[in-house]
């Protein structure tokens, strides 16, 4: 079991460009979460899927952020028209269920918007 796999590990974009981040959850896990980590905010919830269905995207900045889970083996987080304030480490996690289940985090994608 390779754990949660996130690609790329590092991404550098210019202001206004698009960034797509990929996540492969642990096989058999039904819940997939996206969080954004910064020094100031800590681990900020973005969105999550259960059995591939979007359940809660209340943490997603509107308009420029979107997430999808087209199949049980991967999820994507897309940021359009990236801004410097989007610079952060984006963490994907998966768990067997949602509440009261251990979250297993990937190594993260460090996004730098110049």
């Amino acid at each position, binding site marked *: 079991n390779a754990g949660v796999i996130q690609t790329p590990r590092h991404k550098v974009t210019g202001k206004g460009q698009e960034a797509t981040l990929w996540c492969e959850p642990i096989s058999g896990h039904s819940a997939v979460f996206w969080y954004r980590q910064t020094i100031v*905010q800590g681990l900020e919830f973005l969105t999550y899927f259960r059995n591939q269905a979007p*359940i809660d995207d209340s943490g997603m900045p509107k308009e420029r952020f979107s997430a999808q889970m087209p199949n049980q083996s991967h999820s994507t987080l897309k940021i359009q028209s990236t801004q410097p304030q989007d610079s952060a480490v984006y963490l994907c996690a998966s768990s067997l269920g949602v*509440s*009261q289940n251990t*979250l297993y*985090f990937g190594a993260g994608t460090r996004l730098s918007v110049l």
Partner: protein
Amino acid sequence: QQQVRQSPQSLTVWEGETAILNCSYEDSTFDYFPWYHQFPGESPALLIAIRPVSNKKEDGRFTIFFNKREKKFSLHIADSQPGDSATYFCAASATNNNAPRFGAGTKLSVKP
């Protein structure tokens, strides 16, 4: 909105002392309270968790104290070791299937 508040932002203790990290929450539907730790260059990993059926959970040197009335919980690390130096995140979730919300983290440094 910060659903889970955590303090202090950073904490330094000497080896052998007890480190105390604090968290509070607003949503009374939260009923599961895990703590994760994150070592430099690594991802967060579950350390210990508590359900409010009890007000204390121990695992070796790590103890969670839970106060449902005040909506507060804390992590006590006894006999702190330099290897405990990491960032600690508290979290909370509810059985109505919402995603865990995390505090902003406490960076713990244990000096030998």
